[in-house]
């Protein structure tokens, strides 16, 4: 399937590094190493929260020419992820989306979809189908 072209990358952003890493572990178990995957969690300097610089770094680690889907938990994770997207170089900015989906389920289903070669828009739609 990877011959079909680049696979959409997945970034997991949680207030808690434990939640982010745990969700990433579940994604890895589902799709192996084929999907570019990165996670981050925790405020700058520690504690629960999210860190724009870490989100930017995670987008870089999971970067794919097919784009990157970000899964977030709540509140600041979403706002900080949207801020991070705005700080990306212009040529990357349009190829990163924040999915309105539960972080664990969303990350797993987005990764499965990405693994199947779906384009970014489709990965986002499938992840967001989890949101009632």
């Amino acid at each position, binding site marked *: 399937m990877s011959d079909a072209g680049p696979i959409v990358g997945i970034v997991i952003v949680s207030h808690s590094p434990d939640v982010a890493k745990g969700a990433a572990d579940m994604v890895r178990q589902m799709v192996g190493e084929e999907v570019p995957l990165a996670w981050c969690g925790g405020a*700058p300097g520690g*504690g629960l929260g999210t*860190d724009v610089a870490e989100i930017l770094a995670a987008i870089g680690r999971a970067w794919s020419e097919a784009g990157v889907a970000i899964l977030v938990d709540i509140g600041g994770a979403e706002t900080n992820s949207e801020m991070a997207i705005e700080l990306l170089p212009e040529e990357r900015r349009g190829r990163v989306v924040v999915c309105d989906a539960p972080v664990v389920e969303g990350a797993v289903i987005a990764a499965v979809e990405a693994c199947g070669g779906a384009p970014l828009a489709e990965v986002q739609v499938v992840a967001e189908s989890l949101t009632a």
Partner: protein
Amino acid sequence: MQIDAAVQRGLVLAVAEAIIAHANELTALDQAIGDGDHGINMKRGFEAVLADLDAIVAKPLPQALQAVGMALVMKVGGASGPLFGTLFLTLGKSLPERPTRADAEQALAAAIDAVKARGKSDVGAKTMLDALAPVLDAARAAGADWRARLPEVADAAVAATAPMKALRGRASFLGERSIGHVDPGARSVAVMVRAVCTA
């Protein structure tokens, strides 16, 4: 409005020190209806501003404000980072180096619009916007007494958030139970407004 280097330093310092001094109060407000980290987060952001104060105030006013905004974006760690960061970033992008009062009002209006877009919110949702918008209205209406008037308006606007039901942010999870508590973000705005007006 002549904003020389010393005045600029005084303004940034006053805002940063005021937020840091009110950090415990802001956190207590956030414990009532949010996740209890607003004061801690804002303090971390403004400590980053203070750590870089010399470099920030050496810049012309627009760039100095943008540097404050970027420090908040990168260091706050919660939604307040991009929200208050966007406020300062947009003020910086909108103000000329030597702003008139009309320039300041226009810049504040642009910054309020940017915060609305960043937070996908509007006035009436029990957020920082519920302090910012009345302050802008009061700035446009006030005469030479603006330094006395704006902090009063901001404090009244904070109190007016108590009966509101939160529609955005973590407090919105509480629904009706958010009623009766003032909004921590609005309170932060009022702390900043008083700091600027009394600096």
